[in-house]
C-alpha cells in the first residue's frame, strides 16, 4: 500500500484511539504547471506541488474538523487533539455522521481520469503550444494587436479517503488546458474574449491554431458593440452562458438549499418545473468526464442521477447530511476540500441535447438576443431571480446582425425554465457543467 494511504488509515486510527466514535481522513496531493506567452514573449512559468490532509471526527452526533500541511508525527498529533477538542464544543445533530453502509463503495470501472502524459511536461514544448495558439489569434485579423496571452495550464494529483467504517479509496486525476485571450481594437474602443480547450490528457487538446482562431473570431465580432433600447425579446444562450445558467440551477437543486428552504425548487419534487424540452442529468460515471469520480468525498459509490425528465423534477442532488435532513437517499454528490463539513457539488451536470443545430435555432428567431457573455453574479436561489450584465449579438430575421454590450437580461429562473422552447444539439464538455445552446421564449433586456 502506498505511504499516503497508510497515513490516512493511521490518522483515522489515531482519532479513534483518542476517543472519536467515527472519523474520516482526506489527503490531497496536487502538482501544477503553467506558462503564459504574451505578444510572442514568455511572460510566466510556474511549477510546484503541495499536499494537505484533513480530519473529520465525530463524538456521537457532534462533529468538527481540522487540517494541516504538516505531515510530521507532531503535526498529526496536534491535528487529532484539536479536532477532538473542537468537536466537544459543537452541538448534537442527529443527522451528522458517516454514510450508511449500504451506499459506501466505488464505481467498478476505470473512469479514465488520469493520463501519464500530463505528469512529465517539457516546459519549452508547452510554451510552444501557447505561442502557436496566440500566433493564430494574431494572424486571424489585423485588428487583433494586443493580447493577454496564450496559456498552457496543467494539474495532476491524488485524492485519498479513509474512514473508520473501513473504507479506503484513492484515485489520480490529471487535466490540462490551452487558452488564448486576444484583444482587438475598433473605432469605439477595445474588446477581449477567449477560447480554450481542456482535456484529461495532453493528446486530447484541440490543435493550438484552432483555439487561437476561435478566440480571435469571438473577439473581433464584439468590436463596435452597441447598446439596444429596453425591450422584451426571445433570448438564445450559447454554450458558455447556458452553462452559467445551469450552474445557478445547480445551486437551487442542491440539498443544502432545499432543506433550508433557500431554493425556489424546495417542495417541488414530482412537479413540472421546466418545459418538456428540458431533461437534465448529473452523471459521475462519464469516461474521462471533468466531474467524474469513482466515489464521492464521503466514500459513497457514484452513479447517474436523472434530475429533470421532460420538465418534471425527479431528484435533488445531495450528500449524506442533506439527504438525511430531507428523508431521502444520498445521490453521491458530497464534495469537500480538506477543511470543514462536506458540501454538495455537481458531478457531470448537463442538459440533454436536442435535435436542432445552434444555427437552426438562431435562424428561427425574428428579433432577439444571442447571449455570449455574462458579467456579474446576480442570481438569487431563494427566489430564482436572475439579473446579469450581458453581451452578445442581436438577431434580426434569423441572422446574427450586430454586436451588443452594456445591457442586462433579467428574469426568474423558474419562469425561464418553463419558457425553454428549443435545446440545441451542440453539447460539449469543457468542465463539469455543460450546456448546449438553448432558447427562452422571452426575457427583459435592459439597455437605453
Amino acid at each position, binding site marked *: 500500500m502506498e505511504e499516503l494511504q497508510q497515513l490516512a488509515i493511521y490518522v483515522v486510527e489515531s482519532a479513534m484511539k483518542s476517543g472519536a466514535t467515527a472519523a474520516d481522513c482526506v489527503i490531497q496531493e496536487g502538482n501544477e504547471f503553467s506558462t503564459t506567452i504574451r505578444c510572442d514573449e*514568455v511572460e*510566466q*512559468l510556474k511549477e510546484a506541488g503541495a499536499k494537505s490532509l484533513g480530519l473529520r471526527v465525530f463524538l456521537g452526533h457532534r462533529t468538527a474538523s*481540522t487540517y494541516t500541511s504538516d505531515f510530521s508525527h507532531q503535526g498529526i498529533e496536534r491535528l487529532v487533539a484539536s479536532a477532538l477538542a473542537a468537536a466537544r464544543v459543537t452541538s448534537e445533530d442527529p443527522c*451528522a455522521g458517516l454514510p450508511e453502509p449500504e451506499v459506501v463503495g466505488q464505481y467498478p470501472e476505470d473512469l479514465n481520469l488520469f493520463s501519464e502524459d500530463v505528469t512529465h511536461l517539457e516546459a519549452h514544448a508547452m510554451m510552444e503550444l501557447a505561442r502557436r495558439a496566440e500566433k493564430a489569434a494574431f494572424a486571424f485579423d489585423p485588428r487583433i494587436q494586443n493580447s493577454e496571452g496564450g496559456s498552457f495550464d496543467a494539474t495532476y494529483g491524488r485524492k485519498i479517503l479513509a474512514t473508520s467504517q473501513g473504507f479506503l479509496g484513492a484515485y489520480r486525476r490529471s487535466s490540462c488546458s490551452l487558452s488564448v485571450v486576444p484583444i482587438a481594437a475598433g473605432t469605439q474602443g477595445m474588446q477581449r474574449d477567449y477560447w480554450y480547450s481542456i482535456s484529461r490528457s495532453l493528446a486530447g487538446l484541440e490543435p493550438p491554431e484552432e483555439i487561437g482562431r476561435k478566440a480571435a473570431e469571438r473577439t473581433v465580432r464584439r468590436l463596435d458593440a452597441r447598446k439596444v433600447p*429596453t425591450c422584451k425579446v426571445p433570448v438564445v444562450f450559447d454554450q458558455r452562458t447556458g452553462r452559467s445558467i445551469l450552474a445557478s440551477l445547480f445551486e437551487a437543486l442542491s440539498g443544502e438549499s432545499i432543506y433550508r428552504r433557500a431554493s425556489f425548487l424546495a417542495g417541488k419534487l414530482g412537479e413540472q418545473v421546466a418545459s418538456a424540452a428540458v431533461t437534465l442529468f448529473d452523471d459521475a460515471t462519464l469516461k474521462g468526464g471533468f466531474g467524474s469520480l469513482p466515489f464521492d468525498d464521503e466514500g459513497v459509490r457514484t452513479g447517474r442521477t436523472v434530475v429533470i425528465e421532460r420538465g418534471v423534477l425527479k431528484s435533488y442532488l445531495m450528500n449524506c447530511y442533506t439527504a438525511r435532513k430531507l428523508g431521502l437517499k444520498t445521490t453521491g454528490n458530497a464534495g469537500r476540500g480538506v*477543511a470543514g463539513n462536506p458540501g454538495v457539488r455537481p458531478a457531470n451536470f448537463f442538459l440533454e441535447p436536442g435535435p436542432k443545430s445552434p444555427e437552426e435555432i438562431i435562424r428561427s428567431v425574428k428579433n432577439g438576443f444571442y447571449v455570449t457573455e455574462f458579467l*456579474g453574479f446576480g442570481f438569487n436561489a431563494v427566489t430564482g431571480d436572475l*439579473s446579469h450584465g450581458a453581451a452578445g449579438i442581436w438577431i434580426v430575421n434569423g441572422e446574427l446582425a450586430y454586436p451588443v454590450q452594456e445591457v442586462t437580461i433579467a428574469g426568474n429562473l423558474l419562469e425561464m425554465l418553463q419558457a425553454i422552447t428549443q435545446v440545441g444539439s451542440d453539447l460539449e464538455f469543457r468542465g463539469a457543467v455543460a450546456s448546449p445552446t438553448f432558447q427562452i421564449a422571452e426575457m427583459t433586456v435592459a439597455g437605453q
Partner: protein
Amino acid sequence: MQQAHKFFEEKFGFTDSDLEKYLTAALSAGGDYADLYFEYQATSSISLDESIVKGATQGVSVGCGVRVLSGERTGYAYTDDLSPEKILKAAQTAAHIASGPARVTTVGLSEVKLPRNLYPIVIAPTDLDIAAKLDLVLRADQAARAHDSRVFQVRVGYADEVRHVLTVSSDGGIAGDFQPLARLSVFCLAREGNRVERGFSGGGGRVELKFFLEEKTPEHFAREAARQAVLQLTAVEAPAGEMEVVLGPGWPGILLHEAIGHGLEADFNRKKTSAFSGLIGQKVASDFCTVVDDGTLPSRRGSLNVDDEGTPTSQTVLIERGVLRGYMQDKLSARLMGAGLTGNGRRESYAHIPMPRMTNTYMLAGNSAPDEILRTVRRGLYAAQFGGGQVDITSGKFVFTASEAYWIEDGRLTRPVRNATLIGDGPTVLRHVSMVGNDLALDEGIGTCGKDGQSVPVGVGIPTIKVDRLTVGGTGSP
C-alpha cells in the same frame, strides 16, 4: 516587525545566511530580481445553522514561494515543506525563467522599517479557545430570530486567521508582518405566505475578538440581516432602463472598486489592456470626485502594514477632482513603467504570484447633505446595499447587483425593489456624478476581491452620490 523574522527563525531554524543562499540559487541563471515569501497561516471557524453549532474547523498551512523576475518574465515555484533542500529546489525551479550568467546577490539583508503597526493585537483570535467564539454565533442567532417572527432560517459564520509573513528580496530588504483577520456573518431567510426572501450582513477586520463585543456586536449584524430579509418581502420588481441612480454611503463604494479600481491596476495599463490605458492626466470624472486607495487605515480588512512584496503600504490618489492621477503598482510593473512603488503588490498565499491589487478604495466626502441629494431626483433608483460586482477591464463595462434598493419618487424613497443589476461604463460613469454627499462611510469589513483566480480581503467606501445616468436591469417598467 522583527517579531515575524524571529518567528520563522525560531520555528524553522533558518538564518540570514540561509536566506541569502536561497536568493543566490534563485538568481543562478541571471534574472533582475528575486524574492522569497514565507507564510504561516492558522485559521479557525465556527458555523451555526438551525440554532445549533454544526461545524468547527481549525487548521494550519505553511509554505514558501520563490519568484524570479527577468525583464517582463516571471518564474515562480513554491513548497509546503520549509526544509532547506525543498526551498533550494523551488529556487532552482523559479530560476529557469532567466537565461544568463548567475547574478551576484546582496551583501547583507536588512529589516525594512515599517512606520507604524496598523493592527496591534494583544490576543490573536486564533489563540483563544474555540468556546470563546461560540457565544458570538449563538447571540447572533437569537437576535435575528427575535427581530421579527417572519425570520425562519438563520445561518451564522465566524472565521478568523492569523498570518505570519516574511518577504526577503534580492534588493536586500527583509519585511515581516503579523496579520490577523476576523469576520462574523449572518444570513437570514424570512417568510410570509408563499414568499421567501433573504438578507445578509457581516463584518470585521484586522481586529481582536473584543471588536465583536464592544464595537460591532453579533446583534448589530443579526438585526441588519433580519431587517433586509423582512424588507424584501414587500419588494417589487426593479425597473429596467436608464435612469438617475443615487448610491447610499458605505458598501456601495463597490462601484469604485469595479468601475475604476481594477482598471487602474498597473499590470493592465502596462500591457495596455485596460480601458484606462494612457489616460493619466485626463479628465475621467466630474470635479466632485476624488478617489484614493489607502492601505494604511487602522484595523481595516483591506489594510496591511506591508504588502506581499515587502513594500510598506500607502495612500495613493487615483482620481483628483476628476483627473486621473495614478495607478496601483507592484514591483514588476513599477520597474517596467519607471514608476514608484505604492504598496499594492498582493497575493492570496505563498502558492500565488503577486499582482497589483486594491486595499481600501474610497471616494472622499463632498459638500451635499444626503437628503438634499435625494430631493433632486424626481424618478430614479436608490441603492443602499449591494451583493457582488464584476468588470471587463478591456471594454470597461462593469456590473453590480443591488441587494437593497428603493424607488425614488419626487425626492422621496417609496417602495423597495428587488433583482436590480446596474451596468455601466467605467471610464465614463463618474463623469455623470453630479452630487457627492458629506457622509463618507467605509464598509463594515466583508469584501473579498477576485482577480486571476486569487482572492484577497479588501475594503471600499463612498459617501452618498448621485449618478445622472446608469442602466438598471430589472424586469419592471420604469
